[in-house]
C-alpha cells in the first residue's frame, strides 16, 4: 500500500479475561496498517495482551481498560490504561527466568518485545503503560 496512515485508534474493553482477545485482534489489525513484519505484529499483539492481562489481574476495582494506538509511518505507540487501585512502582519489574516459576513473565515479555516501555503508576488512580514499537524494515 502506497500510503500509510497516521492515525489514532481508541479501544475500550471491560477489564475481564474474555475481552483480551478483542484487544489482541484489534491491535493486530492496527499494526497491519504499518510496514511491520508478521513477527513484529505478533510481538505487538502479545505485548498489548500482556498489558491487558495485568490490568485484569492486578488493577483492583478498575472495570475498564483503555487502549490507545498512535500510528506513524515507522512506529506504533500503544497506551494501555486502567483505573484500578494499582501497585507500587517498584513492583513492576522484569526478570529473567532462572528457575521455573509461574508468575512474573508478563512485564518481562512486554519489555523484551517492545522498543520503548514506560510505566506511569498512580497507586490510587490506576496504571498507564506506554509502549512503542518501531518498524524494522
Amino acid at each position, binding site marked *: 500500500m502506497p500510503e500509510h496512515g497516521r492515525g489514532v485508534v481508541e479501544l475500550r474493553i471491560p477489564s475481564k*479475561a*474474555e475481552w*483480551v*482477545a478483542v484487544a*489482541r*485482534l484489534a491491535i493486530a489489525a492496527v499494526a497491519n496498517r504499518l510496514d511491520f513484519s508478521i*513477527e513484529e505484529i*505478533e510481538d505487538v*499483539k*502479545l505485548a498489548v*495482551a*500482556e498489558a*491487558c*492481562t495485568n490490568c*485484569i*489481574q492486578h488493577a483492583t476495582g478498575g472495570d475498564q481498560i483503555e487502549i490507545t494506538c498512535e500510528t506513524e509511518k515507522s512506529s506504533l505507540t500503544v497506551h494501555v490504561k486502567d483505573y484500578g487501585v494499582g501497585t507500587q512502582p517498584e513492583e513492576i519489574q522484569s526478570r*529473567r*527466568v*532462572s*528457575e*521455573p*516459576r*509461574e*508468575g512474573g*513473565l*508478563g512485564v*518481562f*515479555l512486554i519489555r*523484551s*518485545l517492545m522498543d520503548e516501555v514506560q510505566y506511569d503508576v498512580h497507586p490510587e488512580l490506576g496504571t498507564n503503560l506506554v509502549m512503542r514499537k518501531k518498524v524494522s524494515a
Partner: protein
Amino acid sequence: MDIKVNVREAQGDIYVVELTGEIDVYTSPKVKDAITELIDQGHYNLVIDLEKVRYIDSTGLGVLIGGLKRVREHGGTVNLVCTNPQIKKIFDITGLVKIFGIFDDEDAAMKALV
C-alpha cells in the same frame, strides 16, 4: 479465540495433551484443569503438544511451568512439541527453553521421556 484440549494415553503411561487454539488469560484455566487432573490421577510423564496452538501468553506459560513443577516433585517431567517460530521465540526470550524439553514432533518428545 478458544482452546480445545484433547488428552490421550500413549505407551508406557505417558499422557499426551494436545492443545488447539489460543492460550491466554481467558482460556488457560481450561488447560490448567486438564493438566491438574492428569497429575491428580498420578500421571507424571506428560507430552504437551503445542503444534496447533497459534498463540500463547504468559498465563499459558505459567500453566506449563506449574505443571512441570508438580510432576517433577514425583520424578516426572513435561516435554513440549512445538515448531511454530513465534511460540518458540517466546520460550527463547523467557529462558524457558532451558527448562523444558522442546521437540519437533510427538514421537521425539515421547522417546525423550522413556
